[in-house]
């Protein structure tokens, strides 16, 4: 199984190594411990949100609203803090709001059976509006020192947010591989009607996945707020959904569901992070950064597609 997994993610691993080598040659500053830590640090939010997005995409769905959920959660945490609520309680309440948003998505998608794109497109508008509305247009900033721990603190020598991210990644890799919920996600994404026949409640599993995604985005947004130090409700997390989706797909996920792994997605996030950081470190003209990022995304997808074609050739018989 391990070997198979490795094969599945081989192209993106190779491509990431290649890009890393390229940047190392272009800039001596790239392959520094400090910089690697920086890359990890800059992408904590992405890592955590991408876990949720992986599950959603494995189900065969997509979630366009993650950026708005992030904004709503981060803004409410900021509001709670400004009312003098203890940082830990404020964080917990913020995460609850993330879960609530997930429940809204889950309700319409799983229970009311409205296509996910429509629901999350709609909630993307709605949550963003609510976020800016409750913020009153002002920035959430000047957080108390105690809150900054979530974004900048250290635990046992490693940064606290990184620690949280690693734990979450480990938990969800375990969940996806070793628990029934995880396997149900794969089975629904692979063959929905068959999953139903096997007695799997598609409604409940979908609902759970969107709630978990809300939870993860909630956690990510607390870290985001604590790390960046200020939240602007109108722009926080804009563009996050597309970026995270791209990471999942670069990491070997299929938009049609059933295929993909958390580990692969994390590689995808890392790849995007490396590209963005590397282009700046190598002092590429700022005008070229976006163009080059887009080009590398497309290249990564091309490589993935080639891999899929190669794999499918190994099929037994010709009727399948």
């Amino acid at each position, binding site marked *: *199984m391990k070997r198979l997994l490795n094969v599945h993610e081989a192209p993106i691993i190779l491509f990431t190594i290649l890009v890393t080598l390229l940047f190392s040659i272009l800039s001596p500053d790239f392959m520094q411990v400090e910089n690697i830590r920086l890359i990890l640090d800059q992408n904590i939010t992405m890592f955590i949100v991408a876990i949720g997005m992986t599950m959603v995409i494995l189900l065969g769905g997509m979630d366009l609203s993650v950026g708005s959920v992030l904004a709503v959660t981060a803004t409410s945490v900021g509001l709670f803090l400004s009312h003098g609520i203890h940082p830990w309680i404020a964080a917990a309440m913020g995460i609850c709001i993330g879960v609530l948003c997930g429940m809204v998505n889950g309700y319409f998608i799983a229970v009311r059976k409205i296509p996910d794109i429509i629901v999350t497109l709609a909630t993307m508008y709605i949550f963003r509006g609510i976020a800016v509305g409750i913020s009153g247009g002002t920035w959430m900033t000047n957080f108390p020192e105690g809150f900054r721990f979530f974004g900048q603190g250290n635990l046992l020598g490693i940064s606290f947010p990184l620690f949280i991210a690693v734990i979450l990644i480990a938990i969800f890799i375990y969940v996806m591989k070793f628990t029934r919920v995880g396997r149900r996600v794969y089975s629904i994404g692979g*063959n929905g009607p068959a999953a139903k026949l096997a007695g799997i409640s598609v409604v409940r599993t979908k609902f759970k996945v969107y709630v978990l995604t809300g939870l993860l985005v909630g956690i990510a947004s607390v870290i985001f707020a604590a790390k960046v130090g200020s939240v602007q409700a109108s722009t926080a997390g804009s563009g996050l959904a597309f970026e995270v989706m791209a990471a999942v797909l670069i990491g070997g996920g299929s938009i049609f569901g059933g295929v993909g792994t958390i580990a692969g997605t994390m590689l995808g996030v890392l790849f995007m992070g490396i590209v963005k950081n590397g282009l700046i470190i190598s002092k590429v003209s700022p005008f070229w950064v976006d163009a080059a990022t887009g080009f590398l995304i497309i290249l990564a997808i091309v490589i993935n597609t080639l891999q899929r074609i190669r794999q499918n050739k190994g099929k037994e018989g010709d009727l*399948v």
Partner: protein
Amino acid sequence: MRHPVLKMEGISKEFPGVKALSNVSFELYPGEVHALMGENGAGKSTLMKILSGVYSPTQGTIRLKGKEVTFGNPLDAQRQGVSIIHQEFNLFSNLTAAENIFIDRPEMVGRFGRIQWSKMYDEAQRLVDSIGGGEIDVRKEVRHLGVHSQQVIEIAKALSFQADVLIMDEPSAALPENEVKKMFDVVNRLRAQGVAIVYVSHRMKEIFEIADKVTVLRDGAKIDTRGIEEVTEQSLIQMMVGKEVGQLYPVREQKQGQEAVLQVKQLSLDSVHHVSFELRRGEILGLFGVPGSGTHTIAERLFGLKRGTGEITIRGAAVKINSPSQAKAKKIAYVPPDRHRQGIIKPMSIRQNLSIPMLPQLSKYTVLDEARITEMSREYMEKLRIKAPNDGQSVDFLSGGNQQKVVIGKWLAANPDILILEEPTRGVDVGAKAEIYHIIHQLAQEGLSILLISSEMPEVIGLSDRILVLYKGTIVHEFAHGEADQEQLLQRASHPLSEGGHL
């Protein structure tokens, strides 16, 4: 002495406006293979759905091992010991074979909700081995497995529920002829283990080979249950159809010319090696081989769905066929094996489905010529006797036979020189089969050259003027008209030297 493991009494099922089953009773004993027969629409599938927990009956009782039961849903039925294997498998192609067998099963979950993978693999392998699927690696993802292996996985899944009753719906439909034997081995093993099997099939030959008893349904009612030794093929058909049926296969008159319409030389691609043959005007050329032998690949190559080496000549002129549109331009038509996936666009109307390949001819400056399309669709609906209120009817609502006629019709409208038919009667009931055979025959009479690829041997034998047998990508034998019988054909197709395995 023996008690029935399953007893259905007075089962009726009504849908709004339709009575699908009326007062059907059915008994099943342990260790017997009980064939369930009937034309499409006779009520077989309703009965199976009731038995497997998809529907609940309007009236009547089901007793399992003497106890009255109700099934809330298919899983409920499975847990109580009744499993069904559908014609179309319900497998997760993205998951391993083992996981497919034990998907979402509490018994595979250990402490702290952890799935015990090694236990799952071991048990799955044991189950698969016990029904003779030893060569299957249960750690492989299902999408990498062949059809027979997939069926074995389905059976193993059913058995993993300790099934007392196993319903097999057209189990041989997707299987190559040589693998049907393997499937029978599995069924025999199950019978020996005391599992009661409901075997649903259209294929007479199989029924006589494997079944102990046969129950025939017609128009939602049970006609009779008899021991297999009490019936003949003819009497069964009569019970199913309710009247004498005419000749299933039309008598072929050897009228074809000698002029070769299509010549294939040294065709090679994928698993096909150096295949050469010619197809004459007005000829029905049978192409027979077990799946994997390359018959399907040849069809795909000739229709431009795949590319390869070798020379293709039409009426003496070498042609290049690299895409279906090029094939169409060369007047080659192809009726593909999987009607649902490749043949019809379900939500679209009959006229749209019929006219699709011909639209460039049926439009002026790309604007559709509605009058001509109407004329054309009426003509072919009449010619092929497609039963529908009008040509605006969505094909989704047609019976399998009529859907298949639409697929044939859309290519006839294109007025081809060469017609490739692959599995032209798959999933079609007896009545429609005979009609389709007559159509094929008539087309050949009119001068159309037909390449017939089928896994149903009687069909190939009954219709073809010549039969080419393919084995592992090469032509190993040619039968002239009337020369072949089923035994010989199968023997050639599965090669005398290595019985069985085509892998």
